[in-house]
Structure formats: structure tokens, C-alpha cells
């Protein structure tokens, strides 16, 4: 019998009631009396020397309060990068200044140059057209390899080159890997592109800055996945506002996918301008602005070599990747191609020797940073593609080749510095074979061929490192922040509970799943528990939501805080029941004395805590509220096996995704329905990357895919009904819930199986074999590859 509440129940998402009835409170719903509107004049050229800006005519336009330029921000800091990478020679990465508004130079299309603040948005836009820029166009640096090999044009003059860093991991493994590859019986080499993506959350970014002269308090309402991180970065590094004078509020947020982790110039601007003008200042991104100002994702160019011995055992993996940083270092940009990518290059396999080289490159493009999966999709894609290619070259079954090389004993220390605590890769592959109906594939292929189509089956495995992360470890690796999380469990007098969490929910369903955990622990109904998140004035200092970390890290903090609450409540109950607290048991919302029929209800104990008439005041304080900070001992390692079946029209190159199956191991699961939904969404984005989405610049740095007319998002018709299963569960060994995280799995695990399936389909036809096609597999690319 499925449970109807608590851990393991598919409780309906309570937040959906307000989302689906138009009652959500998004940042753009916030309008403050006296608020002004800002319009950013953005660069329409990729690279230029900016000699001057004439704002006089604009400032004289109706309704305009002030036009800000880069000169107004000379006295404040630049937008900071949150992770210092040390290169393979022991040197720190090159870290250019990132101004709030362009000053002296323009470095990418979409970079904000001036900010016009006016009574209405239309007035601000009108005035922006009256600004005169004095600039000289410079050649644009777009291609990464050219940017590195030729430093005659530099994105940043103050740097020695366009290379941010040249990172080797593990550098000490380099020689051993080279030797293993040299001595291998077979080496498969694959060069590929992991295509640049635009995240496209349904809600665009918004910022509303406020300043209160009476108490010198700044407030920023913003579309963020982590309000405390924004407070820390913007307050300490950009504007110099002490934390007790800065409140950051991220109310309902309509999707983030990573792109709302980062601190953006527009947030700093609105906060700064609100004080300068003593009026609230609001900015709402248009969809066009989002394409050229939201941090992009992926954009790696990689060469991977997989070496096998004569028995098809993997002996070494060597990779060389060029990772696009764009024109500036976004908040976590430097960590994505390194620690979130290199550490996953062992995959699910016991390859003894692995070496990863990453060259991060500045170009005249929008900054690139974490996007759903962040580094792990890039690792998974290249590894699972090269394994499939090796199987094809060797004429062996791709599943058997994977199974032969699976890690089977845990904990397992990889050659790329991480230790997998648990997993069972054969179990998820067994489950995949069952749910994907591999047995019926032959008949389905024959049917497709009768209709003039080609059918292909592609599979892949994935492993990811989630629950980011142990702070002491990431500190050693260059993180400039701790990555713990925090929760406060506040029990109210009548027994209801408010839980203030550092995690932020922007689609993940925390408001539903977190109460399930508390309900299970205490035995009171879920609707007696409310989650409070997204406001630095209400919640403890937590690090927010990304990297599939909310439940594994913040959920663990919540469990620890709830344990403290229960321990204290047991002491109160012991007093009320005149028993020893060691004999008190809590079950179904009642405290009882073990072995007796004496009991007291949860609500009576909580009332006693706040109305302490009969209370052990000499031993314990009144009240019932506890906070816990939780710093994980390790990452968590969700894993799984995915299968994609495609039908390809050889006349047009059109590929239809016909079936998609996913067998995941997320450890323990709190709400299976929400987990299924997360997997569905992740797969849709993975199919989007594999089949449709491509962010493309021309050689001059113009963004060609700057709207939905040219940037293809997956729609309902582009994806099949998914078959997903998460019954394979090897619980995480080091967090109290045994959970691993599920938010990114679908996006990490799906692109390789899609591409593997298309390659398989082409191979089944009578035409020429195709070794590889770069994503997105648009009809024109597939058709061209087949010619």
C-alpha cells in the first residue's frame, strides 16, 4: 500500500494551487509605491573600445531621473567570481574585472552600457535611444582555439592572454595515463562539441531595489536560487553594504536551472540606484534581454580518448577540453569545467587511469556558467559517447562493454579524487533492460523499416556528484564560500511548525516534500507544517538550491534541527508525565512513557513550552525552536541507466524520439511523484540539448539564435511519454535521510543515449556509417552527415 503522507508518499504539490491559479507572488508582481523603472542600453556590438558616452539629450527627455554609466561605478567593486582555480602549473587563474556597467570597453553583445531610470519603462526606452556612444569597433574573439593560439586580440587588455586557466586533473596522473594509452590494445578517439545553451526559465530575471533612509536599510527583491549568496557577493564585494543593512528577498521564482544562481549586474544596479535616487528601482528582463544577458550553459569543445586492453577492459581515459567562459567570469563559471566536470570523468567504470585537461577561454560572448547538471552533463556525454563508439569499433555489445567495466564494490575511490559511497550499476541496467523492452526492439525496428524509416536504440549510464558539498573540501579546491546549509524548526505554541530553510524552491516542490519529512519524524499532519524560504530576513544563512543539493544538504540540516526539537520536547514531556526523558517515545504525535499507558499529545507539550506554568524552568529554557547547520561529509552519487529509441526519416534527416526510459538510483525517496516530475523535466531539457537547442554566434560575435524564432525549445510534441523507474535504491551512507538528489539527473543522463540512438539508427541503414554528429541533431545536420 503506498503511504498517503510522510516519507515515501506522493503528496500533491501544495504550491501548485497558487501557481496554477495565478496567485503566485513573483518578483515582477512586486510593485512599490514611488518605484522607478530602469532600461539598460545594451551593446549591439561584440567588441569595441568605448571612448565616451553622451547622455545629455537622454537626461533631458520626459520622465527621466538619471542616466547612469560605467563611470558611476568606478568607486565600487566588480561582479566577483566565487571560485578560484589553480592551474596545472600552480598559478591562479586570470581573473578580469567585471564592471556593473561597461566602462572603456564593450566585450559582448548584450553587455549593459548605460542605465536609464525614468518614471515609466516606455520613457526609459525612449530616452535610451537618445544616448550617443563614441566607440571604435574591435575584431571579435569568438572561436576558442583561435582565441588561445592568437593573443593579438584580447578580450581583456590587462590579462596576458585569452586563457583563463590551463587545468590538469589529476596532474600527477598525466604520465601514467599517457603510458597506459600508448600501451593499449585499442584506443577510441572522439572529438565533439557540447553545444552552448540558453537556460530559458519561464520567468525572466527581475530585480527591484529599495532603500529606506530612516534605517539605512537596503532591500533587493530578485529572481534568485540563493538569496544569501547574493547578499554575500553583492554586499561584500560589489557595493560594500554590510550584511545587517542588506536584505535579499527571492519570492516565488519561475524556474532557475542554474542561471538564477549567479549575481548579476542588474541586481547590483537596482540596489545602488535605489539609494542614489532614494526611490525604488525596478527592472524586468525582456525575453530578448534574457538571451543576451542570462549566463549561458555548456559550450565545451572536447577531444576524448578511451583506451582498452585486449579483453576490452578500460585502461585509461584522457581528455582535452576547451571551455568557454564568455567575456567575464560569472559567479561559478570557473568551477563548472573543472571540479564539477573533471571529478566525474571516471563515470560508472573502474578505469584505473584518468587525466583531464581543461583550458578555459575568454571570448566576446555572454558569460557561461552552470546550467542544469553543470559540468556533469559534459563529462557524461563525452564518456558515454566514446564508450558507444568503442563498442561499435570493436563490434561488441554496448551494454556488455559497460557492464564488464562497471564499478561493483563500494566505497570506491576513483582516480579523479572522489569516493563513491554507494551504487549498484548492474541493478539499474537490469531495471532498464526490463522497462525499456529491449526484447521488443527488433520487431519495432522491422516495423519502422517497413515504413521507410530507420530505428535506433541508444543507451548510456551516468553518475553525478550532488549535494554540493563538504565545505572543507571545496575550500581546498578554491571555493570562496562554504557549501553547508541551514534550517530552523520553529514549533508554534499550538503545535504547528514553521521551518525556515536556506534552500530555495523554484520548481522543486520543497514546500511539499520538506514537510513530509517533519511529519514523518513527529507524526503530525503535513498541513501543520509550513516551509519558509527565500528571504534573508527570515531564514538562517543557507547557501540555496543548485547541484541537486536541497534535500541532501538542507534537508539534512532540517532533520538535525528537528532532532534537537524532539529531544527538547521529550524533556518537557518527561516533566509533564513525571517520567525520565530517556523513557519517552514519540509516535504519531504523542509522547508516551515506554511500557506504560501514560502519554501526552504533541500539542500539549508545545503549549507547555510557550506557556511554561508547569515546566522545568531550572533545567531547560522555554520555547521550542532549534537551528542546525549541516555540512555534508561527502558528495552524494546518484546514478542510473537510460535508453532512447528513435525513428529516423532518411529522406529528411528528421528524428522522432519514440521511446525514452530511465532507471535511476536516487537513494531514499521522500516524494516519488515529485521525483518523477524532476526526471521528466530533466529529460525534456536533455532532449532539448540533444535535438533542438543551439546557441550560435557568428564570427563577428552577433548572436544568431537570439529569439525563439531561431532557438528551438523542446515542446510537448518533441518528447515521448517517458518510462521512468526509481525503485533501485542504494541509500547515501552519510546523510541522515539517505537521499542523493534527483534534480539534474534527467538532463545529465539523456543526451548521450539520444545521440547514441541516432548513430545506431543510421548504422542500421544501407547508407554510409556515421561515427558522430554534434548536437543539436537537427534534421539538416543528420541528413548532411548521411550524405
Amino acid at each position, binding site marked *: 500500500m503506498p503511504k498517503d503522507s510522510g516519507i515515501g508518499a506522493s503528496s500533491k504539490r501544495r504550491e501548485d494551487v497558487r501557481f496554477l491559479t495565478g496567485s503566485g507572488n513573483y518578483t515582477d508582481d512586486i510593485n512599490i509605491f514611488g518605484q522607478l523603472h530602469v532600461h539598460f542600453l545594451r551593446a549591439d556590438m561584440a567588441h569595441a573600445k568605448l571612448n565616451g558616452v553622451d547622455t545629455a539629450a537622454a537626461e533631458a527627455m520626459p520622465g527621466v531621473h538619471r542616466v547612469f554609466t560605467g563611470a558611476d561605478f568606478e568607486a565600487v567593486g566588480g561582479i566577483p567570481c566565487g571560485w578560484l582555480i589553480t592551474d596545472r602549473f600552480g598559478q591562479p587563474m586570470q581573473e578580469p574585472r567585471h564592471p556593473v556597467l561597461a566602462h572603456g570597453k564593450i566585450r559582448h553583445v548584450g553587455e549593459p552600457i548605460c542605465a536609464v531610470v525614468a518614471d515609466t519603462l516606455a520613457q526609459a*526606452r525612449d530616452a535610451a535611444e537618445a544616448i550617443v556612444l563614441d566607440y571604435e569597433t574591435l575584431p571579435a574573439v569568438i572561436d576558442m582555439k583561435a582565441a588561445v593560439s592568437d593573443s593579438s586580440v584580447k578580450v581583456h587588455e590587462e590579462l596576458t592572454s585569452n586563457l583563463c586557466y590551463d587545468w590538469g586533473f589529476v596532474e600527477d596522473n598525466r604520465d601514467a595515463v599517457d603510458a597506459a594509452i600508448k600501451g593499449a590494445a585499442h584506443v577510441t578517439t572522439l572529438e565533439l562539441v557540447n553545444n552552448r545553451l540558453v537556460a530559458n526559465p519561464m520567468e525572466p530575471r527581475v530585480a527591484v531595489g529599495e532603500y529606506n533612509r530612516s534605517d539605512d536599510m537596503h532591500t533587493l527583491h530578485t529572481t534568485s536560487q540563493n538569496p544569501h549568496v547574493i547578499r554575500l557577493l553583492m554586499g561584500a564585494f560589489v557595493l560594500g553594504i554590510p550584511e545587517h543593512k542588506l536584505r535579499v528577498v527571492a519570492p516565488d521564482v519561475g524556474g532557475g536551472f542554474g542561471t538564477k544562481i549567479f549575481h548579476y549586474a542588474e541586481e547590483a544596479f537596482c540596489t545602488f540606484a535605489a539609494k542614489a535616487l532614494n526611490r525604488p528601482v525596478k527592472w524586468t528582463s525582456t525575453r530578448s534581454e534574457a538571451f543576451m544577458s542570462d549566463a549561458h550553459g555548456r559550450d565545451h569543445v572536447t577531444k576524448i580518448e578511451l583506451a582498452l586492453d585486449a579483453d576490452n577492459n578500460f585502461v585509461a581515459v584522457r581528455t582535452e577540453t576547451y571551455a568557454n567562459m564568455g567575456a567575464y567570469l560569472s559567479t561559478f563559471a570557473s568551477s563548472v569545467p573543472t571540479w564539477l566536470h573533471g571529478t566525474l570523468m571516471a563515470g560508472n567504470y573502474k578505469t584505473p587511469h584518468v587525466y583531464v585537461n581543461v583550458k578555459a577561454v575568454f571570448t566576446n560572448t555572454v558569460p557561461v556558467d552552470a546550467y542544469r547538471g553543470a559540468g556533469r552533463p559534459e563529462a557524461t556525454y563525452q564518456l558515454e559517447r566514446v564508450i558507444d563508439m568503442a563498442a561499435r569499433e570493436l563490434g561488441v555489445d554496448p551494454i556488455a562493454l559497460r557492464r564488464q567495466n562497471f564499478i561493483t564494490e563500494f566505497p570506491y575511490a576513483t582516480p579523479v579524487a572522489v569516493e563513491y559511497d554507494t551504487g549498484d550499476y548492474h541493478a539499474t541496467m537490469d531495471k532498464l533492460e526490463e522497462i525499456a523492452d529491449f526484447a521488443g526492439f527488433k520487431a519495432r525496428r522491422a516495423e519502422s523499416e517497413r515504413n521507410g524509416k530507420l530505428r535506433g536504440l541508444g543507451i548510456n549510464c551516468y553518475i553525478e556528484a550532488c549535494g554540493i558539498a563538504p565545505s572543507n573540501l571545496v575550500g581546498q579546491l578554491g571555493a570562496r564560500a562554504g557549501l553547508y546549509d541551514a534550517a530552523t524548526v520553529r514549533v508554534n505554541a499550538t503545535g504547528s511548525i514553521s521551518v525556515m530553510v536556506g534552500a530555495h524552491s523554484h520548481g522543486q516542490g520543497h514546500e511539499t516534500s520538506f514537510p513530509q519529512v517533519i511529519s514523518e519524524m513527529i507524526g503530525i499532519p503535513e498541513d501543520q507544517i509550513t516551509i519558509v524560504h527565500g528571504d534573508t530576513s527570515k531564514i538562517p544563512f543557507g547557501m540555496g538550491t543548485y547541484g541537486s543539493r536541497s534535500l541532501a544538504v538542507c534537508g539534512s540540516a532540517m532533520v538535525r534541527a528537528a532532532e534537537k526539537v524532539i529531544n527538547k520536547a521529550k524533556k518537557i514531556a518527561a516533566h509533564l508525565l513525571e517520567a525520565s526523558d530517556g523513557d519517552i517515545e514519540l509516535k504519531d504525535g504523542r509522547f508516551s512513557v515506554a511500557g506504560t499507558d501514560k502519554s501526552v499529545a504533541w500539542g500539549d507539550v508545545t503549549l507547555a513550552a510557550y506557556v511554561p506554568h508547569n515546566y522545568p524552568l531550572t533545567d531547560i529554557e522555554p520555547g521550542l525552536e532549534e537551528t542546525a547547520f549541516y555540512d555534508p561529509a561527502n558528495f552524494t552519487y546518484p546514478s542510473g541507466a537510460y535508453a532512447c529509441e528513435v525513428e529516423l526519416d532518411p529522406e529528411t534527416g528528421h528524428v522522432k524520439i519514440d521511446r525514452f526510459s530511465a532507471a535511476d538510483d536516487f537513494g531514499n525517496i521522500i516524494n516519488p511523484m515529485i521525483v518523477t516530475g524532476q526526471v521528466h523535466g530533466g529529460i525534456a531539457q536533455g532532449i532539448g540539448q540533444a535535438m*533542438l537547442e543551439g546557441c550560435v554566434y557568428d564570427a563577428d560575435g552577433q548572436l544568431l*539564435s537570439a529569439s525563439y524564432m531561431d532557438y528551438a525549445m523542446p515542446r510537448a510534441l518533441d518528447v515521448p511519454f517517458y518510462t521512468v523507474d526509481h525503485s533501485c535504491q542504494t541509500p547515501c551512507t552519510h546523510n541522515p535521510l539517505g537521499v542523493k538528489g534527483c534534480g539534474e539527473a534527467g538532463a545529465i543522463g539523456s543526451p548521450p543515449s539520444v545521440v547514441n540512438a541516432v548513430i545506431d539508427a543510421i548504422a542500421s541503414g544501407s547508407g554510409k556509417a556515421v561515427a558522430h554528429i554534434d548536437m543539436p541533431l537537427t534534421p539538416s545536420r543528420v541528413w*548532411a552527415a548521411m550524405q
Partner: protein
Amino acid sequence: MYAFDLERPTTLDAAVKAMAAGGQPLSGGQTLIPTLKARLADPGKLISLHSIPELKGVSTDAEGRICIKGATTHGTVAAEAVAYPALAHLAARIGDPAVRTRGTIGGSLANNDPSACYPAAALGSGATICTDRREIAADDYFQGMFATALEDGEIVTEVKFPVPQVAAYEKFIQPASRFPLVAVFVAKFADGVRVAITGASETGVFRWAEAEAALSARFEASALDGLAMDPDHMIADLHGDKAYRAHLCGVMAKRAVMHAA
């Protein structure tokens, strides 16, 4: 969007007079409104053709032609042009329900987007485009990308489609915009076959003379075997190069012949 005035005449006469005074006609606005929102146009005055009853409706004339008034929406054509199934089917697949509820045949033909669907039907059927001042044969009407025979202020009042024996419209969509990457309208009349292609050419919708000749001789998909479209004037963009579009012209033309009904 820049500020503009809006006029909403309720008769064709009033609309013609309003146009004479200067202004931009608005008939559905599925291209014009996004253009205005992006501040790429500043017409000053819009004259809406939406509230003119005499510009709406689908009928059949004495010659058996399907006659569609200029401000008739795609959704209405899809529902009411049943006597010309290929045309109704084409209208039913333009854009999405929102587009089909606002967009009009007159607006589409006046704009003549090189990737629009209606131009293929009009040219492929040998339709007649009627305006407030004359009748124009489709062969004379389409004059290149976004270019038509319309003069300043001229309003498309009606489009008259001869109904072929069989016809079909085969569309291969551009994955992002869902406009035709290449789409082919094939219509078989008693006196010959017409083949019109949209989405493919830098010069807008065009007729494929070689295919028409081959199909007029023998109306079978195999009649197109060996015919190759010259890639020279094809569009090349993110979604397909010249060779791919030229290839798709042949594939889609054959499929249209196979599906003609």
C-alpha cells in the same frame, strides 16, 4: 513599442478612406505586433481591419471558386473551406491556436513572408487576389521576399481559389519557429499541375516549372525522380543550408503528390 494611434473602421469604404490619409493596416498582427513590440517599426497610425464585417467569411462563387474575404482568420478557413480540403488543412496547421485565432489570410498575403504558408496555396492554386481597387493573378502578385504587387494603401479584400481535382500541402517545419523550412503545395487541375514552394527561396514563394511539367505529364511521385532543384537561389541559415533546402523541395513535392486528395 512606440506610441501609435488606432483607427477601427467598420466598413471597407471607411478603411479605404482612412488608408488614403496614411497609416499601416492591421489585419491579425501576427507579424506586425511583434515587430512593433521590438521597436522595429514606428507606423504612427494603425488602421485595424478587424471590425469590418464585409471583409470576413468563406463562400463559393458561381465558378465554383472558394472565396475567402481578406480579414478571415486561419481558424475560420480551417473550419469552413471544407470544399478545398488541402487549403483547409494548410490553414489548420499555421502557427498555433492563438495565431490561427488572430491571423488573417489578407494579412499573410500582404506581408508575403518568404516562409509563410498561404502564399504557397495562393500561387499553387492560381488564386486571384482581390483588392479595394483591382484583381491580381497570383502569378503577378508575388514579387519576392516581403514584396507584392500591392500599392501603398491597397487592401486585400478577398482571395478566390479555383478548386483543383486533387491537392496537398506538405510542410517540413523549421524546428524553432515552426514556420516552413520548406513546404510544397501541389495542385492538379484539369489543364495541368501547379507546384508552389515556400520557405526555400531567397526570392520568396515560387513555382517549380520542371516539376509542374513532369507531373502534368504523369501525376505520380516517381515522375519527379531525377529532378533536382537548383540550390543557387535557396535560403541558407542556421536551420539548413542551400543543398538541404534544395533536397527537401524534391522530398516534399513527392510527398505532396502521394498525399494529394
